C-alpha cells in the first residue's frame, strides 16, 4: 500500500485515553474522561455480532443522505434524547459523546459519508464497536444498518446480559431503526441477526470490574456524605 490513504481523515487519531472536549467539564465526564477506548477483544463475555437492518421502501434518500441525517439527529433517532450529549464540534472522528447523562460515553472511531462507528470506553457495559451505515440494495432500495461487534466488559455486565440487558439492547436498536425509517416517512420492518462470534469468556479480563461505571457510580454516591463532611480549606 503506497501514497496518502483516502480514508486518513475518516479515522480517529490514536489516543491512549479519552479526553472529553466541547462539553461542560465536571461530574458528567467523570466516568469517561481518562478512560481507555476498548475493542471487542478487551472485554470479558461472549463476543456477539448483532446486525439490525431496515429497508427504506419508497424513500428516495441516498445512503449518504440517510447516514447524514442519522448522524445529525442521533440523539433523537436513537431515543437517547438529551441523555446523549454531542460535543460542540459534532460527531467527527475522535469526538467523545456522553451517554446516559455522563454515566458513560462513546468515541467516534470512524466516520465517512456512508457510515460512522462508535468505540466504547472502559467501564461501559460492553467493549467494542457499533457501526451505523447505509447502502443500496440490489433493487435500488436504501438499506440502513446498525452493526455491533461487542462483548460484555466484565462479569457483572455479562450476568446482566444473560438476565435481560441483551434483549433490552436489541429492543433499543430495533426502535432506533424504526425511528430512522419514520424520519424518512417509511414504515420498515427491522431485520435482526445475532451471531455469537466467540463463545469463550476471557476470564483473565475479570479485573475490568474495577472500571464498571455502575459500581463506581454507586460507590461514589455511597461515599458522598464523607465528601460533604471533609473539612474544606479556607482563605
Amino acid at each position, binding site marked *: *500500500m*503506497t501514497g496518502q490513504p483516502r480514508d486518513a481523515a*475518516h*479515522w480517529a487519531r490514536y489516543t491512549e485515553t479519552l479526553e472529553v472536549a466541547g462539553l461542560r467539564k465536571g461530574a458528567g465526564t467523570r466516568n469517561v474522561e481518562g478512560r481507555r477506548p476498548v475493542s471487542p477483544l478487551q472485554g470479558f463475555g461472549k463476543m456477539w455480532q448483532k446486525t439490525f437492518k431496515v429497508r427504506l421502501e419508497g424513500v428516495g434518500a441516498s445512503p449518504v443522505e440517510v447516514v447524514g441525517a442519522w448522524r445529525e439527529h442521533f440523539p433523537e433517532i436513537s431515543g437517547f434524547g438529551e441523555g446523549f450529549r454531542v460535543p460542540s464540534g459534532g460527531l467527527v472522528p475522535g469526538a467523545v459523546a456522553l451517554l446516559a447523562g455522563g454515566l458513560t460515553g462513546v468515541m467516534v*472511531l*470512524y466516520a465517512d459519508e456512508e*457510515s460512522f462507528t462508535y468505540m466504547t470506553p472502559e467501564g461501559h457495559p460492553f467493549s467494542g464497536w457499533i*457501526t451505523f451505515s447505509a447502502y443500496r440494495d440490489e433493487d435500488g432500495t436504501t438499506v440502513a444498518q446498525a452493526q455491533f*461487534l461487542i462483548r460484555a466488559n466484565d462479569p457483572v455486565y455479562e450476568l446482566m446480559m444473560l438476565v435481560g440487558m441483551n434483549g433490552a439492547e436489541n429492543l433499543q436498536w430495533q426502535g432506533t431503526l424504526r425511528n430512522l425509517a419514520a424520519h424518512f416517512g417509511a414504515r420498515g420492518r427491522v431485520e435482526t441477526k445475532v451471531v455469537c462470534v466467540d463463545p469463550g469468556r476471557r476470564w483473565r479480563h475479570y479485573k475490568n470490574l474495577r472500571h464498571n461505571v455502575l459500581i463506581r457510580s454507586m460507590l461514589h454516591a455511597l461515599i458522598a456524605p464523607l465528601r460533604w463532611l471533609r473539612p474544606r480549606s479556607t482563605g
Partner: protein
Amino acid sequence: MAVKHFEAEVRREPKGAVLDLRGEINGFAQGTLDAAYAEAEKENPGAILLNFEGVDYINSTGIALIVGLLARARATKRDLSAYGLSEHYVEIFNITRLSDFMGVFPDEESALYGTVVK
C-alpha cells in the same frame, strides 16, 4: 469513486497458511474473506498470516471483519498475524487495539520468523 473488488487467495507455506488479500476490505468483503479463511483452516495450520500488501482501503466494517477472524483463530488456538500494512494502517491497528492481540509484521519473512512492527 468506484469500489474495488476484494479478492483473497490462500497460499500454503511450511510455517502456515498465507491469505493474500487484494482490493478494499469493507462490508462487501465478508463472504470472500470468510470463505478464504475457512479454506486456509482446512489443513489445520498452526498459524495463518494475513498479507495486506495488495489492500488499499479498510473501513471500520473491514476492521470488524478482521476481529471476527481473530476471534475464530483464538477459538481454535491458532496464531493470526498480519504483514504488509502501510504506516497508516499500522496506526489504525493501534487505534482499534487490534495490534494488542495479533502480531503486526513488516513483511512475510519477518511474519514467519518474528519481528513485530512497533
